[in-house]
């Protein structure tokens, strides 16, 4: 009889995901490289004047972050589905939403957190005024867990479709839009010298809502997908 606790399952699942991801580093590096490439190309395309670059910097960084989140999204549950780990996950005697949250956390750790760390470099390349760096990183810190969670919902829904890539992007982009608007508005407020408090609180609220509901949605979608 299997007497392991939910906590043990959660730890093992997260450990396995980490171990697998660290064996395929290109999957972690590619989305980051994509962001850096987009950010370096912009000054070449629109000209290096600080007045233009500084104004569009937030938008460029955030759009690049959103698109990079879509890049690897299809793979989130794909391997687990193909090798049968997903059906074993459903059969574990633990609440599936908790395990889903574990998988989302690992995804954030490997895809979201590096983006937050990379943000100052991007800000520098785009000549974002230094006063706004902190708020940019804060919005990314609040926003990237949401990206991971929403991506997981989409990936779980489309995992059994074989080629769900295009559908997944269509499904996710509308969900990303509120995040993009509030994150850009928060940095913008700081740039013009007003408080970004309201936007940041709204973002934080959205993040809590997403992180509460997404695991439930992911669990339901996984159950449908393994059928």
């Amino acid at each position, binding site marked *: *009889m*299997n*007497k*392991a606790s939910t906590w*043990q*399952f959660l730890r*093992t*699942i997260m*450990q*396995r995901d980490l*171990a*697998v991801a660290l*064996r*395929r580093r290109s999957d972690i590096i590619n989305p980051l490289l994509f962001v850096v490439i987009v950010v370096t190309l912009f000054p070449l395309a629109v000209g290096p004047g600080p007045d233009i670059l500084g104004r569009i910097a937030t938008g460029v960084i955030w759009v690049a972050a959103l698109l990079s989140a879509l890049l690897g999204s299809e793979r989130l549950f794909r*391997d687990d589905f*193909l*090798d*049968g*780990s997903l*059906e*074993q996950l*459903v*059969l*574990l*005697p*633990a609440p599936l939403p908790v395990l889903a949250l574990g998988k989302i956390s690992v995804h954030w750790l490997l895809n979201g957190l590096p983006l937050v760390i990379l943000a100052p470099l991007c800000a520098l390349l785009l000549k974002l005024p230094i006063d706004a760096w902190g708020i940019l990183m804060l919005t990314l810190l609040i926003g990237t867990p949401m990206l991971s969670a929403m991506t997981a919902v989409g990936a779980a829904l489309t995992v059994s479709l074989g080629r769900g890539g295009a559908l997944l992007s269509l499904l996710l982009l509308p969900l990303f839009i509120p995040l993009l608007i509030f994150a850009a508005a928060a940095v913008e407020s700081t740039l013009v010298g007003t408080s970004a408090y309201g936007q940041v609180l709204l973002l934080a609220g959205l993040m809590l809502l997403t992180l509460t509901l997404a695991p439930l949605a992911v669990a339901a979608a996984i159950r449908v997908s*393994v*059928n």
Partner: protein
Amino acid sequence: MSVVLEAQQLTSVRAGRTLFSDLSWQLAAGEILHIEGPNGAGKSTLLRIVAGLLQPLEGQVLLFGQPQRDDPEYWQRQTLFIGHKPAVKAELTALENLSLQSRLDGVQLDDPWLLLETVGLLGLEDIPAQQLSAGQQRRIALARLFYSEAKLWILDEPFTALDTRGIELLHQRFAQHLEAGGALLLTSHQPLTWSGERLQRLRIEVADE
């Protein structure tokens, strides 16, 4: 002998086709139920219903008299399901796969090397599973059986890709499991070298419509 598993009037419809209807059987401790039938008859579907991955259209399955729907967690703690897909991580080595999987099965492996030797993977433990052959990957998946204390094993084509020695090994392990009062539900196109009253057969035919 006590009844481990009981199916009551199971009916399953997949993609608008009735696979089986009104299927009832019992499985006692120490018995094997061998489900036979041609491809597409619904053998795997039946196994997935028993494992709890699918819901039957009608009817129910009971484990020790407990309906599956009432307490899926109780069910999951007592059963072990190995399907077509081995749930072996291609990027990880055999040893890593075994130690992670055993923790998911709630078992503390005292000596993973002994387990590796039992399933014939000693010397291959640090090679990523994707570089191993299909049979060797299958052995990683089936290693679960050698430490499992689950009362009911549900195995979908366990002999696929195994060599004769592997099949022999599996048969020995099945015997131990039954001796310990476990029950076994399996599909296989291989003839089972089992005789006597312990083996039950259930034949599902392709429904003609």
